[in-house]
């Protein structure tokens, strides 16, 4: 069984929102109709987006760090939003695990959005139906496109390659390897929804140097015991090092 998903590397994301705009551009121009935008240049712009980049700050200035956090539907393996739908408009595809909304069946009761703990479904105030990330299902299977383009729009747009796309049930896929080897984690694991999308944590490359590595380990004079260090005003063997 296949489960397509995104893996987002928070160590690499710079928060540029290129994924947001390319997602909006692709999905507002598709066969499913436009994604609503109200007052786009007005005082309180609002609209439906499948993907948003949020920013969080950890700690207190000056000891603080910033993290950019792109968030879209996680295509849960056990999606809480699907069984509550009264019409069957919300469904999870068996063949690739993508969670979709059939916009022609949705009655706009918003119950699915109540049942999602992640707040990734957004109601379209113009079409009066619920909308959400489709993993660009109208793109990834489009055989008229070159194979390199058959990826979600956000993945294609990311300038730092922070977004990986693939089948997390295939243990050798790029995404599975990334999750396994780079510490991929799921959001709100406490609800048992088993999100398919994973995040790679921010991590720092550090080198650990132990005290003994600062001294000559093969110093033959140290075989029996540590020699006392000479005082600053005493001479050393080479005038440079302390033994």
């Amino acid at each position, binding site marked *: 069984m296949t489960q397509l998903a995104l893996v987002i590397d928070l160590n690499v994301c710079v928060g540029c929102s290129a994924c947001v705009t390319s997602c909006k551009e692709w999905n507002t121009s598709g066969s499913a109709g436009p994604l609503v935008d109200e*007052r786009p240049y007005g005082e309180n712009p609002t609209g439906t987006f499948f993907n948003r980049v*949020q920013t*969080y700050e*950890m700690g207190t200035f000056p000891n603080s760090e910033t993290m950019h956090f792109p968030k879209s539907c996680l295509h849960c393996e056990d999606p809480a939003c699907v069984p509550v739908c009264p019409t069957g408009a919300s469904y999870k595809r068996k063949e690739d695990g993508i969670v979709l909304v059939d916009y022609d069946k949705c009655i706009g009761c918003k119950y699915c959005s109540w049942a999602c703990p992640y707040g990734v479904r957004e109601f379209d105030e113009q079409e009066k139906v619920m909308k959400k990330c489709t993993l660009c299902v109208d793109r990834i299977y489009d055989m008229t496109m070159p194979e390199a383009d058959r990826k979600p729009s956000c993945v294609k747009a990311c300038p730092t390659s922070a977004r990986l796309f693939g089948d997390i049930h295939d243990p050798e896929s790029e995404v599975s390897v990334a999750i396994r080897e780079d510490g991929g*984690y799921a959001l709100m694991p406490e609800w048992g929804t088993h999100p398919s999308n994973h995040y790679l944590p921010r991590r720092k490359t550090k080198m650990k140097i132990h005290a003994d590595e600062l001294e000559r380990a093969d110093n033959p004079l140290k075989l029996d015991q540590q020699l006392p260090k000479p005082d600053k005003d005493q001479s050393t063997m080479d005038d440079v090092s302390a033994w």
Partner: protein
Amino acid sequence: MKPAFSVIFLTTLIGAAQGLFLALFTHQSYALFGLLPMQSDNFYGYGTLIVMVLLAAGLVASFFHLGRPERAWRAATMWRTSWLSREVIVLPAFMGVAFLFGVSHLFGIRPEIVTLPGGMVVDLSVLLGVAGTLLAFALFICTAMIYACLRFLKEWNSPLTVINYILMGGSSGFILASFYASSAAPDQADFFAGWAIIITVLALIGRVASLFRNARLKPTSTIQTAIGVKHPKITQRSMGAMGGTFNTREFFHGKSDAFLRTIKPAFLLFGFVLPLVLLALGLSTPALLGFAFILQYVGLLAERWFFFAQANHPQNLYYQTVG
């Protein structure tokens, strides 16, 4: 959550309707066993007419909740998994049976179905009454489970939600029945008012229990589990939207804490305490019973508003700072 007035009216109106139906058939059952004098068919028939009016008003209100009401029929398809779908099936079923129950009384269509060994005659209206009673309870369960089944919303995710929907609907319906009886069958008003007092007291206990439970809840999700970072101090600087989104509008009531603190004692007073006082007085002054129903209905509207507003959705963790 943001309380939607369509749902507030739907749940309170059909709750009163179900309660009234249960009250009418309870009386007929008592009468059947000879515990109370059997009333005329018109008493039960016109009472059921009120049930139908309330149900229809609730149904109309529910359509205002839908973005695409013309597709509402589709909502009956997923009854295997969705409590909302089950409600969509049970509500018209209850309406149908209540309608037939009313017709059977008003037009005197009461063919004998079976005569029990004790000589008790079970006619069509009794059969419909039993079916209607089962459906009324099924509808209470469906309506309440729509909320109680959402495990992320811990304020709702409790058997108390179901119990309270049954008790508050029952209380509302029995008070209405006592008012109806005070004009249609004055000597029977005390029977309904007595039951109304019992159910209202139980409803008050149930609702206060759920308030106590909710006051002690600890959120399962935190900002740390939401974004997967272990740090005691995490602040959101941007939610990825400049002017608010569906997620900022749908999941927060938009009122101040002071408003929330005011409405809690208000709904306890109007929904439970004052109606109980009026019911007690109404045993001697029937005119107060109508006042009790209206006052309690206002209180139940406030209660339902609070019920929605109090539920704190974990998605709010992701939407704290516009920017």
